[in-house]
């Protein structure tokens, strides 16, 4: 929460509050400010108590990320009914080793989220250009040779830029596969080479000695590998128009969960803002305008209560993210960021709600605003799944700004410059909307 901003006097004829009121808001001395802070705190507390009395709304807000998180973990463990990535496979080598990769990618766990189609390279390019597949994997000529010679080999994976989630799944899956092939190479490379060269002396049958020594050799290699990790010799290269940060943690943790978390924050803000109307209708707002503390403290209490709620929901979201493998160290920053964004979004929606002339009007207005904000700002479909023009606009929505930085924080690769800009923009927007809300509430809103 940012500190209480100073209030300016209104200019309209109706607003003739004297300079003394400003003084009272700023607090003349230490005991005065203490009283204000206590009022702020008790205001937040009373709103929180009232929230807790409505567990249904709370359940929706906290349950949303939980529900989505559960759904995603089902996806990542390969449950049924999951969208599959369409992968084109070009086998230019056509050897036992390359066929092994093809088989591996069409069976077992990989088959749960990949539909693999073998194509020629030209055919594959055409289909990729037409956007008919998520990715194309090329096993280059000489792939088996490279494996047998323990030479670096490179699989080329081209992903479809218009689809971003599914290709990422493919990439992660193939990473695993490539690792498996690497270990196979480490274990079997030398014996395989000897077998491929054929029996010594040009015969057609291996001698018992050779077989025995091959067995011992294989056994030793397995033993040697058990506790050692080698740098992989086979690399998976993904030519991509933009450089991407190394993807070590799943797409669920760094894309889907943050997306859903911001969806929750949006709904919390939209729902909590309705409270100003409730206070107006039940007359408690007018009563609070008659106390000797500036109404700004009362409204700041509401924002604080909203931030507390955002913090709880964030906590749930971050537990899921942690469970999906994000290191603990990245979470405190993400927590602060989300709570801050929750408060900022509440300032924004308080502003929208006080613009309307009736409660129904406010409900309509905030609904009309929240859905485009959610869709454009990447809080429903992640940016990664959006067309570029939409991303370009959406990144500058308040939730888009916040959501993007949350993803960066979770990936452990925040750009501090961008983060600072986002923070300033969000603080500025909150301050402006909060001040306008205070003025409206003190003026026409409360007494109309």
């Amino acid at each position, binding site marked *: 929460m940012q500190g209480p901003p100073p209030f300016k006097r209104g200019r309209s004829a109706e607003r003739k509050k*004297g300079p*003394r009121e400003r003084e009272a808001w700023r607090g003349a001395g230490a005991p005065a400010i203490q009283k204000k802070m206590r009022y702020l705190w*008790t205001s937040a507390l009373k709103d929180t108590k009232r929230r807790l009395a409505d567990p249904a709304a709370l359940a929706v807000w906290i349950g949303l990320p939980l529900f989505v998180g559960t759904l995603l973990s089902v996806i990542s463990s390969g449950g049924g009914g999951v969208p599959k990535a369409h992968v084109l496979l070009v086998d230019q080598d056509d050897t036992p080793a390359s066929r092994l990769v093809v088989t591996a990618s069409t069976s077992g766990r990989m088959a749960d989220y990949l539909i693999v189609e073998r194509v020629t390279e030209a055919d594959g390019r055409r289909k990729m250009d037409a956007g008919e597949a998520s990715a194309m994997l090329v096993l280059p000529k000489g792939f088996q040779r490279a494996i047998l010679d323990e030479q670096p080999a490179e699989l080329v994976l081209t992903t479809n830029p218009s689809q971003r989630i599914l290709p990422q799944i493919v990439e992660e899956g193939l990473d695993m596969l490539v690792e498996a092939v690497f270990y196979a190479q480490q274990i079997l490379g030398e014996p395989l080479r000897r077998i491929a060269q054929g029996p010594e002396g040009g015969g057609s049958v291996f001698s018992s000695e050779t077989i025995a020594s091959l067995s011992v050799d294989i056994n030793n290699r397995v033993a040697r590998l058990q506790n050692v990790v080698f740098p992989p010799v086979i690399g998976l290269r993904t030519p991509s128009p933009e450089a991407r940060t190394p993807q070590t943690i799943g797409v669920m943790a760094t894309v889907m969960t943050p997306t859903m978390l911001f969806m929750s924050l949006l709904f919390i803000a939209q729902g909590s803002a309705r409270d100003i109307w409730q206070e107006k209708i039940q*007359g*408690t707002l007018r*009563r609070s305008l*008659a106390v000797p503390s500036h109404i700004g403290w009362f409204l700041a209490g509401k924002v604080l209560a909203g931030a507390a709620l955002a913090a709880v929901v964030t906590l749930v979201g971050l537990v899921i993210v942690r469970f999906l493998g994000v290191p603990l160290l990245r979470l405190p920053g993400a927590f602060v960021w989300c709570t801050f964004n929750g408060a900022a979004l509440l300032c924004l929606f308080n502003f929208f709600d006080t613009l309307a002339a009736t409660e129904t009007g406010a409900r309509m207005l905030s609904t009309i605003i929240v859905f485009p904000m959610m869709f454009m700002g990447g809080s429903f479909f992640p940016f990664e799944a959006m067309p570029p023009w939409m991303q370009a606009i959406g990144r500058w929505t308040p939730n888009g700004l916040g959501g993007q930085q949350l993803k960066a924080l979770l990936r452990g690769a925040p750009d501090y410059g961008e983060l600072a800009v986002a923070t300033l923009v969000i603080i500025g927007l909150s301050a402006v909307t909060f001040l306008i809300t205070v003025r409206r509430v003190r003026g026409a809103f409360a007494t109309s």
Partner: protein
Amino acid sequence: MIEVQDLRKQYGDLVAVDGVSFTAAPGCIFGLLGPNGAGKSTIINCLSGLLPPTSGRVRVLGHDVVAQPMEARRELGVVPQELALYEDLSARDHLAYRGAAYGMSGSDLKTRVDEVLGIIGLQDRAREPVKRFSGGMKRRLNFGCGIVHRPKALLLDEPTVGVDPQSRVRLLDLVREQVAGGTCVLYTTHYMEEAQELCDRIAIMDHGKVLAIGTLNELRAMLEEHDLVRVRGRFDPTRVRQALASLDRIDVVSAEPDLVVVAAQEASRKVSAILAALTQSGGEIQETSLSQPSLESLFIKLTGRQLRE
């Protein structure tokens, strides 16, 4: 002390309060009596700082409500006409929150909350959410919220609306207790009996203007001890006026096809003459009543209509 000087409040073209002046002294109950829409709540809202006056001055204990709003509000307790309560919070939560809003804290606040719970008789239900309260209990809590911070001036805007006679008596007692402690009370109502019973001074209002102001006795004197004779039936208003004009020292307050109201001193002696005149004018008498001078008779005399219409 509450001072209102030439107060005027306009909503667009509508003049809700039109040049009202009065002073309410400490230890007294000042009543604002008037029908719906007279402008009572508007005056209360100007005093509590909710509405800026269009012109005129309002002061609470010497502090100008516009120029020194925080000082004025500190001394002021407000009990609004509509219930202003949180359905999900308890009585104790309400009182503690209102106290904190006026800068109270710690043991002082706690003691005072217990005290007020005792005053409004809600100790037993102190921890229940307000949504389980009856209307009368809510009214009492609404009142309690206005007195937690021991205000020196109290604004009560029709605090007894919609409560049963028993709760009403209880609430009026609460108001008297406050006044006994030296508080200055401004009390609005459209119940004559309430104003008559409770208030030391009364201003009678209609259409944003004060029609008469004074103690109950002073107001009665304005009626010149006139009694009111009210006759229901069927009449011809013109002929009624002609017939009654011949009678000495009576005042026709209103003559309508179904109701004739006449004001006269010692009216009981003149009732037979009045009835005779009405019968002669061709009227048909169904019901007759005689009332002693009261605020209602004064209001009728001042405005030509009944307070509750």
